[in-house]
């Protein structure tokens, strides 16, 4: 029973929410437009830090901090896009993966009076917690605190609104241009569309959605730390996107929930099996201290099996994938 509840806890937690939004942003980049952004962590980090520093160091209201976070992530998209989006797709991938590492290192080593190195930024959540309308209860309700519930409410409403917005966008001629760019830029250009401008719009949109992921993650943990935004962050978000199905509105949402749920469920199952005086899994094979690593190994295995037997993800259209083989 506690295996299921811990799985559900992790699947819907504020932590998972930040990945949901990051993966939705990646879906705009990679799923719809075919942009290889390997630095989604940078967009989340820049958004979260801009919000956190504005509030914690400059005593600005939270809403202003959020505004600065959105502006910062949009600017990052412009800085990355201007030199690379006219070039082949690989260049954006290289630039973004480098940008993500640069951002993380800057946040963890420079401007310490603002970023506090590895400790990160904290003390920016008061404005958010003050407007929590939920009834006051002591302790926890369904394994979440009152603050968690507030973050989750806002976060999941945000996810729903983002999904509706993207659904409206992607069924429009604008979305059709993006999907066409994913397939063949030159064909789109030959029909009089400014491909560069569309790619830039997609990069900014996905980056801004990623910044929202940074906000929710920061508000959930009550701090913003550089190490939460390492390269793993981006690759886990990619895994979720592919698991759920790229270029499907709900793909990244379901993928993220499922990923954390299963990962946590497997982890606590393994922990149960390998602990105690007489563990079911022999200690020589796997000790209880190795659980957190082994579950990521199993996640990798599961991802490989998924790629082999269901490459389109959960929501994807098999017919679309089959066209690639022609």
């Amino acid at each position, binding site marked *: 029973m506690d295996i299921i509840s811990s799985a559900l806890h992790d699947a819907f937690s504020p932590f998972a929410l930040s990945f949901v939004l990051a993966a939705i942003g990646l879906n705009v980049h990679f799923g719809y437009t075919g942009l290889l952004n390997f630095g989604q962590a940078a967009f989340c980090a820049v958004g979260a830090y801009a919000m956190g520093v504005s509030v914690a160091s400059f005593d600005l209201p939270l809403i202003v901090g959020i505004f600065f976070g959105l502006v910062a992530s949009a600017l990052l998209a412009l800085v990355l896009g201007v030199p690379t989006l006219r070039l082949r797709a690989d260049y954006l991938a290289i630039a973004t993966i480098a940008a993500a590492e640069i951002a993380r290192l800057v946040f963890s080593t420079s401007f310490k009076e603002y970023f506090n190195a590895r400790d990160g930024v904290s003390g920016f959540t008061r404005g958010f917690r003050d407007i929590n309308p939920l009834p006051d209860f002591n302790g926890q309700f369904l394994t979440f605190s009152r603050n968690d519930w507030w973050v989750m409410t806002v976060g999941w409403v945000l996810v729903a609104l983002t999904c509706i*917005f993207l659904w*409206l*966008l992607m069924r*429009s*001629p*604008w*979305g*059709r*241009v993006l*999907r*066409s760019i*994913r*397939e*063949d830029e*030159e*064909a*789109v*250009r*030959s*029909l*009089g*569309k*400014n*491909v560069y*401008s569309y790619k830039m*719009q997609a990069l900014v*949109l996905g980056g801004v959605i990623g910044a929202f992921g940074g906000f929710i993650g920061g508000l959930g943990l009550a701090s913003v730390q550089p190490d939460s935004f390492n390269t793993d962050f981006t690759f886990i978000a990619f895994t979720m996107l592919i698991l759920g199905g790229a270029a499907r509105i709900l793909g990244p949402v379901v993928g993220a929930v499922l990923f954390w749920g299963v990962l946590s469920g497997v982890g606590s199952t393994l922990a149960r099996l390998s602990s105690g005086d007489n563990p079911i899994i022999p200690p020589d094979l796997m000790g209880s201290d190795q659980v957190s690593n082994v579950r990521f190994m199993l996640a990798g295995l599961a991802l490989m099996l998924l790629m082999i037997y269901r490459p389109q993800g959960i929501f994807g259209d098999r*017919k*679309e994938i089959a*066209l690639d083989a*022609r």
Partner: protein
Amino acid sequence: MPADATPNPTPTPEAGPTTGPTTGPTTGTTTGHAAAAAALAQVPSEPGAAKPDPIVIADNVKRSFGGLTAVDVEHVEIQRGVITALIGPNGAGKTTFFNLLTGFDQPDSGDWSFNGTSLRKKASHKVARLGMVRTFQLTKVLSKLTVLENMRLGATGQRGESFWAAPLKFLWGGQEDENTVRARELLARFKLDGKEKDFAGSLSGGQRKLLEMARALMVRPELVMLDEPMAGVNPALKQSLLGHVKSLREDGMTVLFVEHDMDMVRDISDWVIVMAQGKVIAEGTPDSIMADERVIDAYLGAHHDVDITEMEREIEQEHLEYGDPMGDSAHQPREEEK
């Protein structure tokens, strides 16, 4: 964002009652052909000849890749309202010239204009919006979009293609419906109307060529540039493609096409421009080109004008691959660089 909703004033097949099956492949082309021939009657058959009503004028367009000069065109004019063929051996620079004219590649030097507007350093999408639309040698249909979506993508000036208008369907729904009607008319004309809901990736090679041509017409072009429209197309479809190209001229469009199939060139073109090693080496009516010594040396080969009998035609179709101009290369090797 491409929200400028300026409709192209080009005469189009959809504007009048000429839509529907009237513009099928077998439409009589004598009027268009005769008018075109009359317009070009006074033009001398020499490289760089001035035309009475040029739609494209190119001057000193040069492009080299490393040490190789791919294109070096001194002066060339394309007459409005006629079908002009661009021929030449492989590697003559025909496709590179196409790419330069349409902004898909940048020349080292030179200037060229379309309808009097200089296109030097113009981005390819702006060239297309001016009404100069191209297709590709290797067909570029968007395989994961349906045939109808491919067509709709071609329409210009779509309000729904602007980011801010896109979520609000009432702003673009009406225009989308109009575009859909026009797309369906064109699909019917190109005999693709039954395929509307299929993914474009499921079409055969010939059908893709048709779709690409139909999609280019959605842009309402004045000049249609076809890069090897007949490559890899079976003989039956070739006939209908020929008809479609002729019907573009009937509808008032100008056509410039690259082709290796000399039967097609002779059949439908009003004017032929021959390129070799990046330069325009000859220009003229199809008949004068076929008789031109330089062209025979550079491209056609000595026995090019011997009529092929029906039987030879059949053998040719069975045995020879595409891109072979006369189809009798077995006993008559052409002088082409490979």
